[in-house]
């Protein structure tokens, strides 16, 4: 089965007794880019964590390629082709840049593609090539973020989830990351990103979902979002 669309229906989740996601339903069509926006602390990262199995949903459905992901362990979800690049700079600090990248390709299928993917990642993020023998902990904050993204690209996932691809990166690098997102989508990957910046996703994302207080309060195209002053003013401060 090669179908790679994501469907979420009436998803509820939270931490302890505290509800974070309240009845989330959304679809990401195969080979499309969808963006989640909204205030911080309102559930965007939790939603990604539910999909990758890091947070167990209270109720609701998550299906990818027609199969349910609910109840699977994170590594089983990775095996289904769902790859999650979390927020922050979660790298293996005592391993080299090169070894960190290889960790992104630990599944046999991805490992066999290592030389080609390494070349792609190095051409996208040349800094990582320059620093490939360096130990992870000696990288700067932005370089760690690049490494985390590079490692996520090594797996060749069919659904790639990136939590804030532009966080802490130089403007030029953000452009390059978005070029890759667009290229991967054209090559058939399905991509779900969290992005704070509406202007960044124009021309990239097919659809935007706005999450506020654990609920989807608005959806549309990025252009509609930019044009919709009411939405911008209410949720994103204009």
């Amino acid at each position, binding site marked *: 089965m090669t179908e790679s669309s994501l469907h979420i229906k009436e998803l509820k989740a939270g931490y302890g007794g505290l509800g974070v996601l309240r009845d989330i339903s959304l679809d990401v069509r195969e080979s499309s880019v969808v963006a989640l*926006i*909204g*205030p*911080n*602390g309102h559930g965007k990262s939790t939603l990604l964590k539910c999909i990758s199995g890091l947070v167990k949903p209270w109720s609701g459905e998550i299906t990818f390629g027609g199969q349910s992901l609910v109840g699977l362990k994170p590594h089983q979800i990775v095996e289904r082709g769902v790859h999650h690049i979390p*927020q922050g*700079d979660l790298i293996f600090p005592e391993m080299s840049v090169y070894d960190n990248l290889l960790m992104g390709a630990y599944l046999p299928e991805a490992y066999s593609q290592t030389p080609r993917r390494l070349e792609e990642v190095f051409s996208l993020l040349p*800094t990582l090539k320059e*620093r490939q023998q360096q130990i992870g902990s*000696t*990288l*700067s*904050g*932005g*370089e760690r*973020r*690049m490494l985390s993204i590079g490692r996520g690209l090594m797996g060749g996932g069919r659904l790639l989830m990136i939590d*804030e691809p532009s*966080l*802490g*990166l*130089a*403007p*030029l*690098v*953000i*452009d390059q990351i978005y070029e890759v997102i667009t290229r991967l989508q054209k090559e058939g990957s399905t991509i779900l990103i969290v992005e*704070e*910046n*509406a*202007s*960044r996703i124009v021309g990239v994302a097919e659809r935007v979902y706005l999450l506020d207080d654990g609920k989807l309060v608005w959806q549309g195209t990025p252009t509609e979002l930019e044009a919709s002053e009411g939405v911008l003013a209410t*949720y*994103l*401060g*204009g």
Partner: protein
Amino acid sequence: MDQVPSPLLDCRGVQKSFGAMVAVKDLSFTISKGEVLGIGGPNGAGKTTLFELISGLSPADKGEILFEGRRIESAPAHSICHLGIARVFQSNAAFDSLSAQHNVLIAAAYGSSSGRLPPLTFDPSIRRRAEWALDFVGYKKSLSVVVRNLPVLDRKLLMIASAIATEPKLLLMDEPVGGLNPEEIDQVMELVKRLIANGVTIMLIEHVMRFLVQLSTRLIIMHHGEKIFEGVPQSLARDDTVKRVYLGERMSKRLAAYSQGSAIQQ
């Protein structure tokens, strides 16, 4: 007699290497009181390392750093803090298992005492200062919440509160708005403007150009540890090297439009 007021901070030929990598290379610049000096540059250019050197967390290999005319390049971090330099860190640098209030109290105590360790009890004056700092940054969440559980904006506000609780003359801010959405960025921008109005001099590292360009009175762009640009924000988009190594086409266009008076978006 010297008619020009001496700079608040004066870095002369500062250098720092990690093994074979020169992170900061023969860097010289000054900041006068009341300025906002923005620092930009590609990831790994040495920006945060520069803050390490100024705040004394990592000593410079070469060069001199003068704060109010005093040499500080070999001073320990707590002395530098007591002289009036505070820093807001790039990553989450709070005491995760302590409450919000306790975090700021420790900062206020560290900033005022002559010793390095926080006391077992906090004086009323320290409590008042912590309260003032939390109020100043507009922290609205519960004071007793354990910091680990705070969303990113509140953590950032808390880190700023901790820094200003030491009553700095110079505040080093390392990516204060990374990961915030536009509304939250505006909120922090207002806060920084109030700090400036309160007489705090600021050094600012940020990749969010809207923030960096609107707040800075002067900009330095670093690349491979060296200064490749120094000037007013309006001239940044005209510099070809900066465009090539840092900004890229898209942002250069936006900045050029901004210099001609349009609003800027990231």
